[in-house]
């Protein structure tokens, strides 16, 4: 592990230096929100923000992405044959990613890489990305990362962890990739005081997570008992199926695949999709296994907090970023749903 300290006024020159070999994605202010954009050596990234509205998951799985291409020209030999487009995956650094979003990338890897199949598009991006995370000195009131195996300075999924020491950042490498970019970075070796301050800031940040969620009993709950629980209709009552929660969620990865053609050229692409939409599961016959709104709401929460837990035995598919809580237009709160699931006891009384 290597560590360096860089004063904040020199940070742009660090980024400029990285740009020689990498595409650099950094948090920038965009209207009322912060979002990750390619930093092109102009303007200041924002370093004091709670979290970006959209998670940087789009750097692994773009909202819309071409998978294959084809010709429909009957005069060409390969007419109607779907092929992968030759593509270069440039090295990229995402700097300022929050620890929860980095953990979410690790968690998503389980979906995109299985024993049987590797999603080559996702994996190539993952392999060519360096994750330089920024610890959270002041987490939001909606953050509950510490309840779900994460935290404001959690290191899982990061190559480098940055800690804001006031007028300077402490960079600590956590992987070989991280060590490489630190090696070619200007900066001083942290002093003992820097290390002490970093530890204090870390503890202070963790103390600021006030929101707690219990899900300890969910793994031992019977799946069908939870599925058939009476509270789902109540949870879903106010839901308008807008899908905001799924688009903002760093661990939502579902996508649709569609073909588009113009003239004799065409593409097959994938686009983010959402389990909140009835079309997601609509059969060709017209039958829909999740036709009702409450069934779709149940699917989202059961997937994150029960199906995933049971399938992989490695905790919930939630990193506690709190985006769905903050941005849900009707105030559905995953923390309350988790409590309901955790405390659920089937009523055995005879009606």
């Amino acid at each position, binding site marked *: 592990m290597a560590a360096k300290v860089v004063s904040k006024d020199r940070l742009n020159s660090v980024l400029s230096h990285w740009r020689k070999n990498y595409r650099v994605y950094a948090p920038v202010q965009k209207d009322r929100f912060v979002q990750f954009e390619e930093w092109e050596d102009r303007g200041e990234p924002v370093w004091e923000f709670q979290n970006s509205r959209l998670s940087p998951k789009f750097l692994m799985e773009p909202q819309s992405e071409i*998978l*294959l291409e*084809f010709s*429909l020209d009957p005069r060409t030999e390969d*007419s*109607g*044959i*779907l*092929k*992968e487009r030759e593509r270069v995956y440039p090295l990229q650094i995402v700097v300022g990613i929050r620890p929860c979003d980095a953990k979410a990338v690790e968690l998503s890897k389980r*979906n*995109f890489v*299985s024993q*049987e*199949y*590797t*999603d*080559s*598009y996702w*994996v*190539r991006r993952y392999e060519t990305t360096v994750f330089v995370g920024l610890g959270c000195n002041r987490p939001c009131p909606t953050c509950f990362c510490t309840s779900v195996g994460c935290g404001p300075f959690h290191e899982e999924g990061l190559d480098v962890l940055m800690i804001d020491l006031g007028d300077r950042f402490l960079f600590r490498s956590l992987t070989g990739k991280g060590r490489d970019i630190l090696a070619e970075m200007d900066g001083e070796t942290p002093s003992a005081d820097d290390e002490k301050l970093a530890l204090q800031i870390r503890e202070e940040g963790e103390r600021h997570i006030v929101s707690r969620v219990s899900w300890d009993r969910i793994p031992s709950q019977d*799946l*069908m008992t939870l*599925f058939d629980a009476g509270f789902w209709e109540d949870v879903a009552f106010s839901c308008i199926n807008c899908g905001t929660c799924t688009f903002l969620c760093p661990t939502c*990865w*579902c*996508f*649709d*695949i*569609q*073909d588009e*053609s113009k003239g004799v050229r*065409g593409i*097959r692409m*994938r686009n983010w*999709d959402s*389990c909140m939409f009835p079309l*997601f*599961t*609509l*059969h*060709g*016959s017209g039958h829909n*296994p*999740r036709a009702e709104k409450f*069934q779709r709401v149940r*699917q989202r929460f*059961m*997937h994150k907090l029960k*199906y995933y837990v*049971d*399938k992989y035995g490695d905790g919930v598919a939630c990193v506690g970023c709190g985006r769905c809580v903050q941005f849900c237009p009707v105030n559905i709160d995953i923390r309350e749903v988790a409590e309901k699931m955790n405390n659920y006891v089937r009523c055995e009384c005879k009606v």
Partner: protein
Amino acid sequence: MKNPYVPYPVRITEIITETEDRNLKTFKLEFLNPEDEGKFAYMPGQFAELSIAGKGEIPIGIASAPTEKGYLVFTVNKVGLVTSHLHNMKPGEIMGVRGPLGNSYPWDRMEGKNVVIIAGGFAFTTLRSSIVYMLEPRNREKFKDITVVYGARTPGMLLYKDTLAAWEQRDDINMHITVDATNDPTWKYNVGFVPAITEQKAPSAENALALVCGPPIMIKFTQPVLSKLGFTPEQIIMSLENRMKCGIGICGRCNIGTEFVCKDGPVFTLEQLNRLPKEY
């Protein structure tokens, strides 16, 4: 790194209209690159994504058997964009096949057992594959009695009529073909719904596995009949369908609880399904 989204290019060599409503057609496909056939090693019960450039993909059960070399067979019901386009395609045209996908029928468990096949309507495709596979001379001795109850609404709605007729002539398979109703005076097989014919023919549950595929209504009324005959939920094998895109457990839409129909299925025992949401 192998890209699991790229289909193998294939050529349509033959198209057969199967049913009197002309809504079901069987497509025989040959790999454009002969070496792809070796990569497409499958077992009965698996499916593939039929891929048409500019239209999209559809998950369809493989109706040919691995013992039938040189080609693949799929029987497709016309329902949506891709299937309608496919129904208008002609022999010689090029399309794609991506797979094989999903698990298969439990062939390890089926060896040494009596196999009871119960099917209704056009859900007979992967069961055709299974029967052809089991009847192959070098495979036949691995299985004990093979009993088939297969029904459709009318004689004209049965799939693979020539093949069925050929199986009727054999003594190593018990065929019970049935139709819901018919005016045809020359109809020489059964008349009656699949559950009723199953009850009447009463295949024994002793050392047996039942593969059951059909419309929900048939399955609903066949299950109690099988229970009465002594089949436990572990002995009842079913194949599910759900809307799919990737077919490899990544895109997230076909799950029933913890299981992806595309990757963990499509074949499940009734015992497994009893512990999962009925979201199919």
